[in-house]
């Protein structure tokens, strides 16, 4: 098992994926800060909390567009080597358990998305200090909600991971991931949000600020159940699949 983890990490070593998951959210926070400073009076004129404003400005486009897009990229990338050079055949002809390979790859992929969220939190904390936010740090907003967004995004990760492993063409997880991400903004405003997992991160990230997205704990319950079901299906399907 240790060998598989080491090999999987080695494959990602030169993929620049760490740069992608670190720089992308940092850039979104930078953009949020610039926007906040530009319209400083508008955003803080009525005594609003600067940390909260920083969170909203950084998070709004991140959670609606970039986050689901980055999940698609990460999930595509973890399966890239096996998909691109008929690597599955070689990999699985070795004395390794199919299920173990599948689970380890998924843990690494999910971990990369977690690094992405951690970077977002750290970038917001640094940005807040740099712009001189005087109020006490709202831990729940700045740390709790991004972590909740991560949990809410588990079904998207699971679905795209299953697709990335199943299809060698990168356009399948990318096309589906992006294609379903943008309508989420509209679906999130309807009663059908529950059957559309791409709305979950929006609910988790913006629920506190926007009443329409506040759905309580149902988001997380649905998220955990759905992601577990999809991953179980993925492992079963991968174990049964013929590698040709």
């Amino acid at each position: 098992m240790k060998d598989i983890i080491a090999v999987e990490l080695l494959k990602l070593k030169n993929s620049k994926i760490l740069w992608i998951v670190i720089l992308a959210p940092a850039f979104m926070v930078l953009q949020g800060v610039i926007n906040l400073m530009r319209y400083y009076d508008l955003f803080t004129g009525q005594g609003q909390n600067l940390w909260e404003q920083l969170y909203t400005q950084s998070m709004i486009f991140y959670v609606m567009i970039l986050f689901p897009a980055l999940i698609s990229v990460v999930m595509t990338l973890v399966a890239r080597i096996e998909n691109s050079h008929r690597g599955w055949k070689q990999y699985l002809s070795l004395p390794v358990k199919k299920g173990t390979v599948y689970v380890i790859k998924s843990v690494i992929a999910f971990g990369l998305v977690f690094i992405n969220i951690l970077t977002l939190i750290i970038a917001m904390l640094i940005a807040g200090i740099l712009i001189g936010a005087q109020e006490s740090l709202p831990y729940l907003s700045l740390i709790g909600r991004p972590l909740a967004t991560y949990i809410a995004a588990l079904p998207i990760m699971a679905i795209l991971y299953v697709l990335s492993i199943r299809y060698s063409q990168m356009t399948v997880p990318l096309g589906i991931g992006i294609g379903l991400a943008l309508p989420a903004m509209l679906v999130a405003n309807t009663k059908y949000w529950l059957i559309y997992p791409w709305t979950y991160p929006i609910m988790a990230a913006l629920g506190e600020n926007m009443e329409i997205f506040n759905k309580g704990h149902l988001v997380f319950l649905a998220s955990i159940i759905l992601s577990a079901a999809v991953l179980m299906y993925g492992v079963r399907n991968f174990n049964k699949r013929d590698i040709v």
Partner: protein
Amino acid sequence: MPEYCRLLKGEFLKQKKSFIWPVVIFTPLVDALLTFVNLFLRYDYLKGLEANQDLSSWQLLLTQHHFIWAFLLPLVATIITSHVHYLEYKSNSWKQTLVLPVSRIKVYLAKWSTVFILNILMILQNSIYLLIAGKILGFPEIPDIHLITIYSVYQILAITGLIGIQCFLSANLYNANLALAIGFVGVASSLFFAQSEQLAKFIPYAHIIFALPDPTINNTIALYYGLTFGLIFLAVGLLFFQSKEIY
């Protein structure tokens, strides 16, 4: 010219069984469907808003549609561009292609043209679907073909800049995901860039936002800067591709 045509034909042959076709076909369809549902449910409410009172039904349709399409089109254009180039990396065929007695300029142009044609197909399909959506919704005005044609032309010119920069990145970065990530970050930030017209002029990811034919929107950014940046990045891409190392 025949060499370029053969290369272009080859590019489309490579895409024959790829998932790119469902993406090109369904993206504009799904987008138009969402616009249709939006207006079907909220037409009276939207028409009643003060901001929309001077808009014709067709203008309202485009305004509502552009909110999603201005992000969806560039994101999908980014995926298409990466996919067209990724095929070469995936099968390690840059080496085989570039050692053949074919002009590198034509190889690059064929890839650029493939991406451009696929994007035009998406834009035109979308325009047709929007016309159909408006007809089904039973707008009181006659179909505004002129408005939708202008909108299509603006989009085609606006997306040229993004295609140029993404082709340049995808052809020169071995890792297709890196080009994708840069594109996605660019698109996700596009609305932020678009808040400043001066800044947006120089950011190809933001040009498409200015493609909506509306008196309050500066369409020259989509028209002139889209095309100009498209040509500049095409030239830069060609230049770099000429000296691309193959292993």
